[in-house]
């Protein structure tokens, strides 16, 4: 089970190799990527901060829960921190599974739980300012840092 919070570039090939299993018929990989816009506003780059040791602990708990819920052969969860440019990968997950349906359903569940529970925060930086994005999907749950 590959679990990592890192400032280094995330490599999908490493995550895929880490979940390989002769019993797996399906591998699902998800990359959360920095988009050039959010809520209609143009984004220059993102700055990710984590509570790294707790983030890895929670990522491992979620990964282990996904194995028992979805019967995965193996799981990899990697989150990058620091400054990320448009197009760079902030979150990388890979799951291996006997069959494809569980790989899609469980992969989606895993990403949702990571976004809900792992202590990581992102700051959006625009041409004319910046703001911590706080809360799920940054929709209606922003903290008072929003100005």
């Amino acid at each position, binding site marked *: 089970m590959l679990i990592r919070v890192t400032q280094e570039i995330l490599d999908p090939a490493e995550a895929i190799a880490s979940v390989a299993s002769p019993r797996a018929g399906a591998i699902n990989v998800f990359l959360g990527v920095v988009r050039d816009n959010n809520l209609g506003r143009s984004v220059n780059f993102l700055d990710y901060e984590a509570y790294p040791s707790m983030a890895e602990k929670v990522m491992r708990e979620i990964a282990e829960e996904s194995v028992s819920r979805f019967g995965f052969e193996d799981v990899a969860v990697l989150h990058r921190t620091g400054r990320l440019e448009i197009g760079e990968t902030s979150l990388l997950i890979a799951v291996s599974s006997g069959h494809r349906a569980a790989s899609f359903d469980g992969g989606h569940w895993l990403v949702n739980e990571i976004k809900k529970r792992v202590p990581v925060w*992102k700051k959006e930086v625009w041409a004319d300012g910046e703001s911590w994005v*706080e809360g799920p999907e940054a929709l209606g*749950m922003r903290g*008072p*840092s929003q100005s």
Partner: protein
Amino acid sequence: MEITVLLFASVAERAGTRRFTLSLDEPATVGSARDAILAQYPSIAPFVPNLMYALDEEYVREHDAVTPHSTLALIPPVSGG
């Protein structure tokens, strides 16, 4: 007793610190520790309604006990992924 307090993201920026040692009367709870932190850094008050708390890297609730030498983290709403 003494505990270590960790601040992150918006809260750390507002307080101007990310980590400090806090002295507390025993027995202490997460809530009483939070009140002591607020007394020291009143500027973070607007963030408090949205905070979660982690004690030694485990999510806890306000009435949970705080033990000596533990690490209390104030967790703003997360936005990873």
